[in-house]
């Protein structure tokens, strides 16, 4: 069997999710035994001119050029993976959408703003069709491998649709609300094995909201714990602003 030709590309992002691949350690050898990486700017110089079997896309779409680029990539690949929070749900780049486009452009580029056309931030699936989604800031490597296996086996692999609390409870962590800290675990999609909370951090909602979140209920929870509703609204905004694009469509 020919190994699938795999490439990595990025748009607006920190490229940290791609770095996770390089950080994979010994498991990387097994992964490289199953795929043929033909283009990956962060780790190799070679370019690929033909078709791809899989393209992993990190980053969100924020410029007109990026829209054209992602469309060209889509046309060149059989399978497209939205890789990391920026690609999967818009991620932190979505905070741009809190401002008027002209204002934000001037604030960043000043008098040269006219040289930098811009569009509101979009997750990849809001521009082109996406086949697999791996959210996370950064991606959780066991999930990357799970998606890769699903692709190799020709199976779908939806992002889990239960709350981070589920995995957190299985890990028997002390609930952060008992520490008086607001955590987005109750309304954020699981699949990260409550990675952050296991290490003493809160859940920032980087994997996107569950498909059917009880946001009113979540706000009631904050009130019960005497936490500000603005606090959680801000936290949700940090990664999930682009979700509004989905609701609009």
């Amino acid at each position, binding site marked *: 069997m020919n190994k699938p030709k795999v490439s990595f590309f990025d748009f607006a992002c920190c490229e940290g999710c791609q770095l996770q691949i390089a950080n994979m350690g010994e498991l990387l050898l097994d992964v490289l035994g199953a795929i043929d990486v033909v283009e990956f700017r962060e780790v190799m110089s070679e370019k690929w001119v033909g078709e791809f079997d899989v393209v992993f896309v990190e980053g969100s779409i924020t410029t007109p050029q990026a829209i054209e680029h992602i469309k060209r990539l889509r046309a060149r690949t059989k399978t497209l993976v939205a890789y990391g929070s920026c690609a999967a749900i818009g991620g932190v780049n979505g905070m741009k959408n809190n401002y008027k486009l002209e204002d934000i452009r001037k604030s960043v580029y000043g008098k040269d703003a006219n040289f930098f056309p811009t569009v509101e931030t979009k997750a990849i699936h809001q521009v082109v069709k996406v086949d697999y989604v791996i959210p996370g800031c950064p991606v959780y490597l066991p999930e990357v491998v799970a998606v890769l*296996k699903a692709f190799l086996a020709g199976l779908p692999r939806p992002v889990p*649709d239960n709350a981070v609390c*589920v995995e957190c*409870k299985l890990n028997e962590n002390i609930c952060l609300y*008992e520490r008086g800290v607001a955590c987005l675990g109750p*309304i954020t999609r699981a699949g990260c094995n409550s990675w952050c909370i296991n290490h003493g951090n809160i859940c920032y909602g980087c994997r996107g909201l569950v498909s*059917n979140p*009880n946001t009113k*209920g979540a706000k009631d929870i904050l009130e019960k714990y005497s936490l500000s509703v603005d606090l959680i609204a801000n936290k949700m905004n940090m990664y999930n602003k682009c979700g509004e694009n989905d609701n609009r469509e």
Partner: protein
Amino acid sequence: MQYNLLNKNQLNDLISFLAREQKVVAPVAQGLNNYAFTEIKNGIQATLNYIPTTLPPKKYFMPQRETLATYDTTQGQNMDPVVEHEKVALFGVHTCDLAGIQCLNMVFSEKPKDQNYLARKNAITIIGYECNAYCDRFASCRLVHNHTPNGGYDLFMTNLGDKFILHVNTPAGEKIIERSHLFSLAAKADLAALERLRQKKREIFEKNEIPIEHEKIPELFDKSYQSKVWADLDKRCVACGNCTNVCPSCYCFDVIDEPNLDLTTGRRYRQWDSCQNETFAKVAGGENFRKERGARQRHRYYRKFRFPIEKFSRFFCTGCGRCSRACMAKIDLKETLVSLIKEQGMENPNAGRQSTIAEKPATF
């Protein structure tokens, strides 16, 4: 079977004795009034004065994730069952959790028997520990008659103040007594002290925490399927799944095949699942049989108080209160029951007083 005594200063010796032959797990304080069953090496690490642990001891009977089989499709479809188990002594299990284990034993002993569960169960020694008073306001063990021991242990310890008295319930328990050389036979005065303690408990656990007779609960649920209470829970519940994951008698799991990167070999494992999760009742085509969170909560309550009466002739609520403690939305089991009772006009403030159910006397 008999009663034995253990000096308080020999508790550590008992743990050390048990630890020589098996893994010993006991409640260990995690901070912020959270406790977890954790492996210990000596008695100092354990906390006997604890509120129910975050996860019940079911995690030793059916771990959160457990491999069931490995497979290899290089030549045909070869599948080998995997039954993992190790010798474990569960130390300091409260009566609510003993009841939870009894529930699971019934479920997993039904045909087809669950070999993975039973292999683990057979390798586990249980040393119970009596609560002499309420742990906190969430408990409702009196309602379901779990405030006193009803079996389900090898040894059962009661704190008599200056010493522990242990009820020996199985040959495995007897072996520990014999081989450890730490125990002495209880005298009549000790049994009288135990009886006094149980009498005092009858005063503390004087009546049901919830104003309804034990026997009336199935009827309450028969009348409550269309109750407004479920609509209220629908608004509050965020479907985080905490209530079921921490429940000592919830046992639902999902089975997942996980291939290796070669795609020809792999493993099949099960993982705790929850009727509160969005995808639990979702089927091919996208239909969801319990899309409403209120319907999922209702299902959970019926799985504790109504359905198991038909199937196993017992409540599957053990009264431990974990679901109420762990609920993000502060949905409280006791409050839910009280609301249902009021709605149906079935309130009985003296319910449980001078119960007709005979309490097991601590005599000989």
